[in-house]
């Protein structure tokens, strides 16, 4: 972490399948957009490990760090 710019979570909306899995794991970071796909509402809404879990457990592999 030291010296590196902080990573930002992003959602690939082409891949998202609206599972809401990330919203369950990191509700402060992700929310369901009006169109039924996940979106990032607060990149700093949870600690890095929680966001990483959301990324790891996304069933559509639609989440990553930017």
């Amino acid at each position: 972490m030291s010296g590196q710019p902080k990573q930002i979570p992003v959602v690939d909306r082409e891949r998202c399948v609206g599972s809401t899995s990330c919203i369950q794991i990191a509700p402060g970071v992700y929310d369901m957009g009006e169109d039924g796909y996940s979106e990032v509402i607060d990149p700093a809404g949870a600690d890095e490990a929680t966001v990483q879990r959301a990324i790891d457990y996304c069933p559509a592999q639609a989440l990553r760090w930017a």
Partner: protein
Amino acid sequence: MGIDPRTSILDPEINQDPFPYFNAIREDQPLHWNERHRAWFVTRYEDVRNGLRDPGLSVDRVGPYFSRRVPDEQKEELRPAFDVLGNFLSFLPPPRHTRLRKIVQKAFTPKIVANQSELIDRVTAGLAASVTERLREGQTVDLVTEFARPLPARITAEMVHLDPSDIQLVEKWTQDLAMFMGGAVEASDRNDRIRRGVSSMTGYLEGVIRNYQGSADGDFVGALLAADDEGVKLTPLEILSTCVLVVFGGYRTTACSIANAARHLIENPDMAERLRQDDALVDSAIEEFMRYEGHARVVVRWAGQDTVIQGQRIPQGDRIFLIIAAANRDPRQFERPDELILDRAPNPHLGFGTGIHYCLGAPISRIEQRSALRAFLSGVPHLSKVEERLYWEELLTNRALKKLEVTLDPVTVG
């Protein structure tokens, strides 16, 4: 220990408790050829997860069934029904799947889901009240038919604008359709029931679609009828198929999950008590029930091309069973997999699948399960099963209770 390749998953003893069998395969022969089902059994978590995501494994169950299992003289009569089934999102590969799912996803927006949420709570409260009253009067209540099924029946009926007086049709239609979807044991009238179920369903739903006057906003059918951002529309058959799929997928699956959860809470009163004390555990408990004994047992795929699993080559055309029930208990992925741990986190179970075919209705199913679980917990605290034995449907793909009869625990009466 050798594993008999002639074993049927629907063998009465295995159907009663399939986990020892699945666990043994997963540990001894993670890729196992079963002669009875003529399919490769894939049981380890990583393999099942990868299999669900593998575009090389075909999801089309309709084409092969129609060409091989429907006798030529019946083909013409059965074609319309199989055309409807063949347009289910769950059986389509990209790019058609991609185009369809994009539009159908609009029918599951938060607004539409939220519109259902209020109704869901109202329906569960009503069901719980009537069940509680009857139990207090000393009656026996079947929680499958009187609690677990009516909720998703009502919600799916609402989504596709069934007249409330026709709700019983949901049960009838899906019973017939389960003959195909669930891989029922060879029933002699199987094809006939599939045809009957689908044509009765499509007849009704065609009327609903034709007469739909509402807006696209906040309504499932309206959203299906509307075009996407680029002006692309679903074909009439795609709209119809999607409505049929939602009725089928939205009803029985969620009903199974609710019944399975209720069963575990009756058998483990300490867990029920813990959930009553700590409502925050309800969400993780639902995921854990789905992992431990979810409704999804087997997902059927076939090798669209030569495929390698566990270092072995599977030739194109072979059937593959991705055994969700085995993967969800894989000790390589889950600690103490054969225990129900209500606050298990994270819990990346495969009960809703994974990849592009991940369950479209998962958000609504979760709301229904939550609502049902809370209503159940706030009802009568001490229930007993009338019989120790459980009765399971004879379906390959699903773990579904036929009935769950309960009475008020005699100790607490008065």
